[in-house]
C-alpha cells in the first residue's frame, strides 16, 4: 500500500475565486512595496558605485570618502555624539519608567502624558527652543559656562529631548510586565534591595533596555533636524548627506554616506527584533502583576526625577511657544501673533501648513488602507506561501531605512530619466508614497498584532459558508480591528506632520511642507516664525490626538456594542 501511495500523483490544489483574488492582491502589494521601497534603495546602492557620469567605479567613492578627513571625521562625530545622547536618554528614560511603574508617586497619568509630548513635535522644535534658551541671546546662556550651544552640546540635549518618549515606551513596557512572584521569592530569600534590583528588575527589563538602546541610537544618528539647527559647524552624517546633495549636488557621495547610515539602522533592526521575541517569550501567562509598596525614600527620589524631567520637557515647549508669541525677542516681549503671519518670511507660508495637513490626511487614509489590507493578505492568504513571506519581509524593511536614505533613494529612482513614474516627481502623490513607505513597518506590525488576536478560523468558517473572503473582511475583520486601524491612521498623520528627513529632498515649490518650512525659516534666520510653525505642528498633532481619543471612544460606544457584556 505504501508503494501505491508513493506512486500516486501529487495533488495539485485547485484555486477558487478567493485564492485567486487574495494571491493577486498579495502580488499587487508586493509590487507596490518593490516600487516604493526596494527599487529606489537598490538604485541608490548602485549609485554609490558610480561616478557623476554614471560609469561604474567600484568602491572609488568610498575610498575618496574615507581618504578625506573632513568628510570621514563625521563618522567619529556621529558615533560619539549619538552614543553620549543615547546613554543620557536611556538613563533618564529608565529612571522615569521606573518611577512610573515601580513607585507610588502621584499623578502618574499626567507625567506619562507629558513624557509623550515630544512625539507630537518635529525634532526641530527642541533645537529651536535650545537656541532661545542657550543661544547667543539665550535666557540661560550663562548655564553653559561660556560653551556654545551650537555643536555637540546642543545636538546631545536636543536629541535626548525628542527621543525620550521612544525610549520610555520601550522601557516602560519592559518594566510594566514584572512578575510579583519573583520579588516575593527574592525578598523571602533575604536578598538585599540592591541585589533584587540587579537580579530581578534589571534582568527582567534587559531586553527592553537593549531594544531601547539600539532604537534610540539609530534615531539619533539618522536624525537630521537637531544637528541642522544647533549643529553649527559640527558635522553629523545626516547633515552631511544634506550638504552633499542639496549643497553640492554630489549625489554619489550622498549615496555613500547614506549607506554608512544604513549600517547602524540595519543592526538596530535585527537587535530590536531579537529582543522583542525574547521579551515576549520571557513573559509567562501566570505572572502576577507587581504592585509597588510605598517606600518614602524611593518615592521621594522618583518624584524629584520625574518632576525635573517633566519641567524640562514643558520648559522646552514653553520656550518655543513663548518665542513664537514674543513680538521681538529679546527686546520686546509683549505678546503678538505677528510671527504666525508667515507672509514676511522666506521659506514658509500658511500654504506649507495646508500642504502638511493634506499630506497627513492622505498618508493617514491611504497608508492605513494599504497597510491594513496588506497585513490581512499577508496573514490570511492560504496560497502562495513564498509570496507571503517575501511581502512580509518587504514590509519590515522601512524600519531599517533612515528617512534621509529613503528620500535620497526616491530622488534617484523617480527622477531617473526613462522611469515611467517620473511624472510623480515633485508632486504631493510622491510625498505621500514616500511617507507611507517611511513609516510602513510600525503600521504593518500593529495591524498584524490586531489580526492575530482574532480567531484564526474565521476564514475557514466563512469559506464553509461559501462567503467570499472580502465579505467577511468587510463585515467582520475590519470592524473588529477598527481601533487598530485608527491607531495606524493616527501614527501616519502625526509622523507625516512632523517628519523632515525623507521629504526634505522631495518637496517642490508647490508642495512645501510645514516641517520643512521650520527648517528653511530657521536657516534664513527667521527663528521666531520657525518656532511659530513648529508650534502650529504641535498644536495640530495634539488636536488630532484628542480627536483620535474622542473618535475611538465614540466608535466603542456606537459600533462595538458587542464588546459590552
Amino acid at each position, binding site marked *: *500500500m505504501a508503494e501505491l501511495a*508513493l506512486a500516486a500523483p501529487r495533488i495539485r*490544489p*485547485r484555486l477558487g475565486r478567493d485564492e485567486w483574488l487574495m494571491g493577486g492582491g498579495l502580488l499587487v502589494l508586493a509590487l507596490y512595496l518593490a516600487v516604493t521601497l526596494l527599487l529606489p534603495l537598490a538604485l541608490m546602492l548602485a549609485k554609490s558605485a558610480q561616478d557623476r557620469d554614471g560609469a561604474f567605479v567600484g568602491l572609488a567613492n568610498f575610498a575618496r570618502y574615507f581618504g578625506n578627513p573632513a568628510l570621514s571625521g563625521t563618522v567619529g562625530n556621529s558615533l560619539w555624539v549619538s552614543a553620549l545622547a543615547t546613554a543620557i536618554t536611556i538613563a533618564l528614560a529608565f529612571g522615569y519608567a521606573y518611577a512610573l511603574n515601580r513607585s507610588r508617586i502621584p499623578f502618574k497619568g499626567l507625567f506619562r502624558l507629558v513624557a509623550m509630548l515630544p512625539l507630537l513635535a518635529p525634532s526641530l522644535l527642541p533645537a529651536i527652543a535650545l537656541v532661545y534658551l542657550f543661544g547667543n541671546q539665550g535666557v540661560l546662556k550663562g548655564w553653559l559656562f561660556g560653551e556654545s550651544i551650537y555643536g555637540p552640546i546642543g545636538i546631545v540635549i536636543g536629541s535626548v529631548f525628542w527621543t525620550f518618549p521612544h525610549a520610555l515606551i520601550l522601557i516602560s513596557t519592559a518594566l510594566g510586565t514584572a512578575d510579583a512572584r519573583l520579588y516575593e521569592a527574592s525578598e523571602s530569600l533575604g536578598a538585599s534591595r540592591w541585589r533584587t534590583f540587579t537580579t530581578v528588575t534589571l534582568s527582567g527589563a534587559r531586553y527592553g533596555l537593549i531594544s531601547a538602546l539600539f532604537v534610540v541610537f539609530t534615531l539619533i544618528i539618522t536624525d537630521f533636524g537637531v544637528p541642522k539647527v544647533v549643529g553649527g559647524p559640527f558635522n553629523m552624517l545626516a547633515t552631511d548627506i544634506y550638504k552633499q546633495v542639496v549643497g553640492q549636488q554630489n549625489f554619489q557621495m550622498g549615496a555613500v554616506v547614506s549607506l554608512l547610515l544604513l549600517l547602524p539602522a540595519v543592526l538596530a533592526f535585527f537587535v530590536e527584533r531579537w529582543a522583542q521575541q525574547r521579551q515576549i517569550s520571557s513573559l509567562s501567562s501566570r505572572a502576577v502583576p507587581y504592585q509597588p509598596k510605598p517606600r518614602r525614600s524611593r518615592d521621594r527620589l522618583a518624584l524629584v526625577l520625574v518632576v525635573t524631567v517633566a519641567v524640562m520637557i514643558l520648559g522646552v515647549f514653553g520656550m518655543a511657544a513663548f518665542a513664537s508669541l514674543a513680538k521681538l525677542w529679546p527686546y520686546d516681549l509683549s505678546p503678538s501673533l505677528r510671527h504666525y503671519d508667515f507672509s514676511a518670511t522666506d521659506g514658509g507660508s500658511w500654504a506649507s501648513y495646508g500642504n502638511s495637513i493634506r499630506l497627513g490626511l492622505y498618508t493617514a487614509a491611504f497608508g492605513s488602507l494599504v497597510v491594513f489590507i496588506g497585513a490581512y493578505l499577508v496573514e490570511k492568504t492560504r496560497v502562495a506561501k513564498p509570496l507571503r513571506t517575501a511581502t512580509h519581509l518587504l514590509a519590515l524593511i522601512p524600519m531599517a531605512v533612515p528617512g534621509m536614505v529613503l528620500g535620497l533613494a526616491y530622488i534617484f529612482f523617480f527622477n531617473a530619466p526613462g522611469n515611467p513614474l517620473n511624472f510623480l516627481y515633485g508632486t504631493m502623490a510622491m510625498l505621500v508614497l514616500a511617507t507611507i513607505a517611511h513609516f510602513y513597518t510600525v503600521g504593518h506590525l500593529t495591524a498584524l498584532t490586531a489580526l492575530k488576536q482574532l480567531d484564526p478560523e474565521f476564514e475557514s468558517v466563512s469559506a464553509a459558508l461559501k462567503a467570499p473572503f472580502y465579505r467577511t473582511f468587510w463585515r467582520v475583520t475590519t470592524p473588529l480591528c477598527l481601533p487598530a486601524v485608527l491607531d495606524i491612521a493616527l501614527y501616519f498623520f502625526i509622523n507625516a506632520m512632523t517628519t523632515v528627513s525623507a521629504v526634505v529632498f522631495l518637496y517642490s515649490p508647490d508642495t512645501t511642507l510645514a516641517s520643512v518650512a521650520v527648517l528653511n525659516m530657521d536657516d534664513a534666520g527667521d527663528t521666531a516664525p520657525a518656532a511659530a510653525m513648529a508650534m502650529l505642528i504641535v498644536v495640530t498633532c495634539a488636536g488630532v490626538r484628542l480627536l483620535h481619543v474622542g473618535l475611538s471612544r465614540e466608535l466603542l460606544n456606537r459600533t462595538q456594542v458587542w464588546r459590552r457584556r
Partner: protein
Amino acid sequence: MTTPYLRVRNVTKRFGHFTALDDVSIDIHRGEFVCFLGPSGCGKTTLLRAISGLDIQTHGAVEQDGRDISALPPAQRDFGIVFQSYALFQNLTVAANIAYGLENRKRPKAEIQRRVTELLELIGLPESGPKYPGQLSGGQQQRVALARALAVSPGLLLLDEPLSALDAKVRAHLRDEIKILQRRLGITTIMITHDQEEAISMADRIVVMRGGRIEQIGAPLEIYHRPANLFVAEFIGAMNLLPATRIGYGEIQLGSARLACAAEGYAPGAAVRAAVRPEDIVCTGKTNGHANSLRAEVREMEFMGPFFWLSLGGGELGEHRLRAQLPSQRARDLDLRANDATHLHIPAERIRLFPHGVGHG
C-alpha cells in the same frame, strides 16, 4: 451495501520530511456519526482539514457523494464546520451569525428570518437572536456555532473538538444534545476528539489514530471489547496488561495461576500480554465457586463513590499487580478490607492476548 457518502482513499499529508498522515483510507456512510479519536499529534486534525480542503493532502483522494473533491478549495466543497474556539463573529448578533451563510446564497429575507428562528428553536435558544456572542455562555456559543454551520443544510458536518473548551457538566449535556440533533437531522458527521469517553458515547463508529495511521475502525462496543492491538487496548478505557505465558491448549499462566482464554495464534511457551479490564474482574471474597480463578491480596482500596478501585497483588499473582473495579454494594456484602485475601474470577472470554512487547510507543 450502498456506496459510501464520503470516501477517503490512501490519503497522505507531508510537511517537508514529516509525514502527518500516512496512507489513510476510510469509508463513511450517509447519516453516520464518526469520531476520529487519538492522542494529540495523531493526525486526526490533519485528516479533517484534508476532508474540508482547508489544508489539502499531498497524495490520495477524497470523494464526497460520488464527486472527486480531492483538489477543490473549501469554498467549492459541501460541509459545515464547528471549531473548539466557536469562531463566532463577535461583532454580529447571534441571529446575524446564523444568517451569515444564508444571506450569502441570496435567499429572500423572510425565508432567512424563518430559518434563523427555526434554528434558534432547534438549539434551544429562541430568545437569544438579538444578543451578541459575548453575552452568552461557552456552551450556548457553541450551540450558536452549530446552528450557523447547519443553517445552509450542508451534506457533511465537521466538528473539530467542539466540546473541549467547555467545563465537564456543560460538556456532558451538549454531548447528548449534539447526538440527538445529529440523529434527528440524519446529517453525516465527523467529530474530532481526544476524549475517548466522548467518542464512545457519541459515535456510530470510531476511527482510532496514532502517528498518522489508523489503528482500528469499529463501533464503540467493538473497539472497547475487541481492541485490535495493544495501543487501542491501552488508549481506550482502563486496562490491565500483564505479562503471561501461553501453556497447554487454551490456557495461560499468569503468576502461578492458570487461566483459560482464547489463545489461538500463539505457540505454546510464547510470551504474551494478557489484557483484562478492571470491571471484568469479579471479586468473590473467601468463596471460590468459579473455574477461572486466582487468589490475591488487597493491597489498596480507593473509594470512588459507586465503586472501589482495588489494587491487587501477592498470592497467585506474585509480583504482578492487578487493578479491579469493585461495586460499592458488593464490597459491603463481602466486607472486604485492605490486606484481606480474596478470590478473583476472570471470565475466559474477557481475557485478550497480545504479542509481548509490541505496540508500545
